[in-house]
């Protein structure tokens, strides 16, 4: 079919080499008829996948479209994105998910995998036609009412059971709606001082606790969207230890920002789930690294990383998680007239 040679590309940051691609796979034999691509100065990475995006099309094309979203993803090294269902109309039928899938193929930049809604209109009352969406051209396997919680416990149970038939997974936006009415930010000292209705951590933790028990009870997989609290991390840790098939995700802003930023009342800091406290951020960072370590332990003996000297927060975090310094490249980075060391750290894992 097609063959390409990426000349002079740096694979994962290593010294430049020539990479041969044949019929969509990396090949180790050269091919004289291959199309040559000058890749000097470029880096080759395994394509990143974003499990949770909002492409806003159909309905909010003023904010984003499948094409603009695909373009942004491709520029960032993503080759696949999963598109959430809270569009207008909602992606709760084969028709809408196929439309999104088709738009993705027309844009032709990344794989756009539509996510189907769990309930009709995201209203949380009636199951959407999950089977139809699964067998459609969009081949949906992830279902989520993201933006809304599947709050009714009986409905959540049914959904978890129903998708087993086609190896689907429910991705829950964990937010007990009765505890978060009118909420604008994390419920805590800051919200009390600012006079803003709070979104208590327990509203997320209670749903996750319920859902892992439900998933365990019916023997289903469960995915939890945008986890934001230390308590949630703890619930998930215990569930995984018991063998529940649950996975979770975290957003970049929940790893970096805290609720005191809302003190300016600038609505850009009012997100859902809300920015939380420093101890929540610390717990999420640790959980993320532990998840990487756990995944790596299956096939890897050592996990190495590089920290820039002066980044005390990161250095402390890695030390706390069992990474040791094994080397230092002094003055490895020059920025703004200053020199920074590269600190080399390693954590030894047992092969599981």
């Amino acid at each position, binding site marked *: 079919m097609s063959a390409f040679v990426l000349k002079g590309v740096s694979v994962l940051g290593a010294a430049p080499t020539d990479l041969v691609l044949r019929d969509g796979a990396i090949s180790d034999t050269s091919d004289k008829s291959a199309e040559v691509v000058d890749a000097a100065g470029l880096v080759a990475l395994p394509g990143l996948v974003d499990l949770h995006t909002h492409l806003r099309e159909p309905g909010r094309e003023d904010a984003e479209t499948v094409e603009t979203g695909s373009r942004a993803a491709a520029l960032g090294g993503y080759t696949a994105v999963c598109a959430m269902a809270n569009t207008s109309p909602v992606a709760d039928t084969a028709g809408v998910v196929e439309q999104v899938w088709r738009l993705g193929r027309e844009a032709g930049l990344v794989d756009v995998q539509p996510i189907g809604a769990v309930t009709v209109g995201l209203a949380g009352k009636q199951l959407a036609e999950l089977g139809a969406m699964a067998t459609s051209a969009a081949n949906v396997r992830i279902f989520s009412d993201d933006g809304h919680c599947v709050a009714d416990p009986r409905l959540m149970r049914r959904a978890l059971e129903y998708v087993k038939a086609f190896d689907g997974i429910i991705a829950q936006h964990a937010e007990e709606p009765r505890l978060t009415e009118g909420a604008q930010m994390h419920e805590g000292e800051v919200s009390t*001082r600012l006079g*803003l*209705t709070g979104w208590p951590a327990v509203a997320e933790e209670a749903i996750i606790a319920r859902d892992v028990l439900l998933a365990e009870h019916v023997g289903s997989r469960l995915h939890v969207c945008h986890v934001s609290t230390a308590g949630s991390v703890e619930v998930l840790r215990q569930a995984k230890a018991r063998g529940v098939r649950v996975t979770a995700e975290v957003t970049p802003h929940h790893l970096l920002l805290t609720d005191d930023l809302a003190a300016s*009342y600038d609505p850009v800091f009012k997100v859902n789930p809300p920015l939380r406290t420093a101890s929540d951020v610390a717990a999420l960072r640790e959980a993320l690294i532990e998840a990487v370590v756990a995944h790596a332990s299956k096939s890897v003996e050592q996990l190495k990383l590089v920290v820039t000297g002066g980044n005390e927060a990161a250095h402390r975090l890695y030390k706390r998680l069992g990474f040791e310094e094994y080397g230092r490249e002094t003055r490895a980075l020059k920025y703004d007239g200053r020199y920074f060391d590269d600190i080399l750290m390693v954590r030894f894992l047992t092969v599981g």
Partner: protein
Amino acid sequence: MIKHLRSAADLDAATATLILDTAAEMAALAGREVKKLPTLRGRTVVNLFYEDSTRTRISFEAAAKRLSADVINFSAKGSSVSKGESLKDTALTLQAMGADAVVIRHSASGAPHRLASWVDGSVINAGDGTHEHPTQALLDAYTMRSRLGRLDGLRVAIVGDVLHSRVARSNVLLLSTLGASVTLVGPPTLIPVDIAAALEPAEPTRGGKPKETSAKVSYDLDSVLPDMDVVMMLRVQTERMQDSFFPSAREYSRRYGLDLARMRKLPEHAIVMHPGPMNRGMEITPEVADSSRSTIVEQVANGVSARMAVLYLLLGGKA
């Protein structure tokens, strides 16, 4: 001098005392035949009221006019706002008009903060959502000082729906700054658990005393009354019953209402305050509201003096 008054926490002890002292001088104006001062002549003060509040708006209007400022009233009803104009767009219009100060009352906590980033003039918070009402706290402190002669070491109880009360928040902050000690009283559902930590005073009290001025919390009104110099009753809306904050109006007033029997438990000199409007029969009985201990009527008069002092201090000097 500060530029905006958005929160009682904007005031340190020195500035707050200056406002109270200035208000005392402004109060003398009320006794004169010509109730006018030329001080803010040529300045424009805009009253931007998104919530109905005749009393507060008139108070600010009187304050500005007595200082010879030009006053422009903007109320949400029947204006561009009801057509969906955003606060930001309204702010830009005011900016173009050259408002020296905007007095804003809004149902969203934080509206004065957002407004301050869009206008060049001073922003005065006349009540934002459930966040703060700093001029109310100033007139309350002025009333306490007039009646009782001091604020430092005064023991004040604030009773009622603290969770939803912007008056409570501003009062706790200001009274703590001025050295009074505050006890918050109400059902646990209406007092946030972390309220004391959330409203820590901005600076240590005068004389660098240790921070004993964190607000205290009590769920038992009767045990608190004998030790108080001031009892401030907050308005409690009966609608809160629908959200299960308390089971019934009857149970609320029985446990937390101020009636004659409870008023008699107060020390001889103690005063009863209420920011208004009152729910007679709910948090306060008519006999208590009309008693000689009650400062409810003079709080209104003091409001004009306090607001004159704030306008003078924010607009009366170099921009």
